[in-house]
């Protein structure tokens, strides 16, 4: 009895509700004094049953469903979905539409990286950086709003193309915002690489070697900070990335500082790409022809979300609803590394290491609880569910 009380006292639960987490998930951190000896993760608090729900919606409605997997990287989810469906349908997407997809995706990457910078700085107790980076992020939010009408869930994609064009006024607004942000980003890069106190919290903390990153299947900036050259935009160019090539940003240190540096340097790559893209925007239509019925088939759609590789598997059975859509978000790949990396670190470093992968639990949790996404038509209570399972002749558990 005494023994269990002791061991329980020194298990620190982080989540499902905890100030360090902006979204619900549950980590059980066992500590010996301040040193972490074990970590355990439990997900599912933001499960919304999107994969299941997708099977009962038609291809067009699903676009709006998948855009809502994540509130930060909504565009990239919609892009992955659209690219997959268009490949299944054999539809041609006009080059201008593909370029605008890339434009919005890169703007989204800027906004996501700046948001992450703020969150990570906050975890390190550096609230001034948090406030400044979020203030600057507003510039991108305004640009996205001007471009698509929305600050989040831009809905820029439609099947076969994009919804909004970019006119000269918007082009000017984007360039102005980027010019302003570029100077700020240099400043932030300077801060995260030279501020002595901040470096105490990042340099040499949460080191993941290249080999570890490969084995644990890390993706995105997390992997690139460990020297793994994985970037879908370069490896398998989608949308218009073959016409607007990206320079891969790789760091080798593998610690938290490298993760900061990779994301900051990616910002400059985004600025460069957007400028180049706006100067070389191909003329033409915004939408291609899209058949209403999608032929039978399977395809894989991979894109580089701000957090890493986003993987969609789509299977069509020839009807107007998909047979199966599987979404594998980058966070689930990177989360494995967190659970392994925190062991041996201080408790104070846990939020930082967790933030280092830029986790997004809404992205992660997609599948089951079916109550919220159906437009409030009906709420499914647990009792009903139990009854349902009993009627099906399955056992149930109280």
């Amino acid at each position, binding site marked *: 009895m005494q023994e269990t009380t002791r061991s329980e006292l020194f298990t*620190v639960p982080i989540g499902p509700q905890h100030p360090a987490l902006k979204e619900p998930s549950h980590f059980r951190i066992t500590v010996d004094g301040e040193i972490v000896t074990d970590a355990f993760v439990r997900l599912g608090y933001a499960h919304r049953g999107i994969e299941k729900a997708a099977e009962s919606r038609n291809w067009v409605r699903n676009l709006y469903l998948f855009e809502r997997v994540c509130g930060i990287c909504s565009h990239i989810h919609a892009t992955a979905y659209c690219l997959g469906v268009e490949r299944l349908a054999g539809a041609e997407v006009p080059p201008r539409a593909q370029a605008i997809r890339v434009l919005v995706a890169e703007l989204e990457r800027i906004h996501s990286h700046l948001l992450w910078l703020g969150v990570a700085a906050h975890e390190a107790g550096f609230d*001034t950086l948090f406030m*400044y980076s979020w203030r600057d992020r507003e510039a991108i939010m305004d640009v996205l709003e001007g471009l698509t009408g929305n600050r989040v869930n831009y809905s820029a994609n439609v099947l076969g193309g994009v919804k909004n064009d970019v006119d000269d006024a918007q082009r000017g607004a984007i360039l102005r915002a980027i010019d302003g942000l570029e100077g700020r980003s240099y400043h932030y890069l300077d801060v995260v690489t030279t501020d002595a*106190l901040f470096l105490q919290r990042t340099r040499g903390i949460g080191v993941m070697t290249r080999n570890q990153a490969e084995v644990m299947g890390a993706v995105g900036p997390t992997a690139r900070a460990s020297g793994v050259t994985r970037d879908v935009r370069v490896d398998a160019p989608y949308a218009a990335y073959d016409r607007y090539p990206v320079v891969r940003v790789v760091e080798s240190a593998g610690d938290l500082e490298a993760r900061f540096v990779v994301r900051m340097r990616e910002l400059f790559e985004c600025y460069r790409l957007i400028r180049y893209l706006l100067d070389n925007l191909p003329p033409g239509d915004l939408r291609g022809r899209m058949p209403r019925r999608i032929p039978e088939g399977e395809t894989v759609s991979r894109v580089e979300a701000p957090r890493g590789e986003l993987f969609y598997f789509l299977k069509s059975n020839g009807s107007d609803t998909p047979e199966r859509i599987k979404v594998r978000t980058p966070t689930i790949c990177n989360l494995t590394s967190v659970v392994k990396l925190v062991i041996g670190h201080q*408790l104070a470093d846990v939020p930082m290491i967790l933030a280092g992968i830029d986790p997004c639990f809404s992205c992660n949790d997609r599948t089951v609880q079916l109550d919220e996404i159906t437009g409030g038509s009906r709420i499914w209570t647990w009792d009903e569910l139990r009854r349902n399972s009993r009627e099906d002749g399955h056992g149930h558990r109280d």
Partner: protein
Amino acid sequence: MDTATSLAAILVFPSGFFLLAASLAYEWVDRKLLAKLQNRVGPRWFQPLADVVKLLAKEEVIPEGVNRFLFVGLPIVGLAAPLTAALYIPLAGLGPVFSFPGDLIVTIYLLSLLTMSIGLAGSNAVGRFSLVGATRTLTQLFSYEAPFLLALLGPALVARSWQIGTIAEAAGERWFILTQPLGFLVALIGLMGKLELPPFDAPEAETEVVAGALTEYSGRGLALFRLGKDVELVLGLTLVAAFYLGGVEGPLAFFLKTLGLLLVVAGLQAVLARLRIDQTVGLWWRFGVLLVLVQWGVTWLLEGAWR
């Protein structure tokens, strides 16, 4: 001093109501300055008072499994200790209400009592965040208390007195910040560590241990602890100003000097990232104590040369 004057001094001015009001005002100045430095709007002037009123009006939840007497009593001790200490400190530019040879030591002990109460309150509550926070609070107490005390003893050494009033008088003759810059630095940073202000706020780092030792506190207890910290902020600033910035003769000098120090403190809070608890301890014992000892050595040599 007759009983009526003493009572008035304890209850109204300079301790008591005046001190509480000043504490809330200083908390507001601190928050507002920090907000301005972080490019935020910041709270309105009555926000700290509103917070306290709100907390006092709220239900105080006493968790199961705690010692109720300690749980209720510790916040009272936590506020009473700095209020008592205020009587020995030259507040608002006036001399201390009470004074005796050696009151500096008593005052410093009284100022530590708040942190002790917070640490004990955290250990008393059975929550894990409270326990981790309490461990950190007490660890920090042991690390910054020595350098802070030593830094305050620097001017005392020159004034050849343990009495705050005498030291403040000696400080009025020349600014010790000029002759003892290292001591001033350690005293100011020590004060921040004492109050668990950023970047020394590891004991209550919200992203790790929620609210640290005070996680389980709500309502009255939390309000009293917060008030206690605010009072200690004013007292600490006064002590540092009185010892190092040429004394606090008169209300104008008092407000100017303490608010000037507060500006520096807010600036430091804004530009520094939080230290881990091991880094805090390391910083203090490796550099804080060393700096003070160097300062002592230099002071001793110079004083010896003058005499």
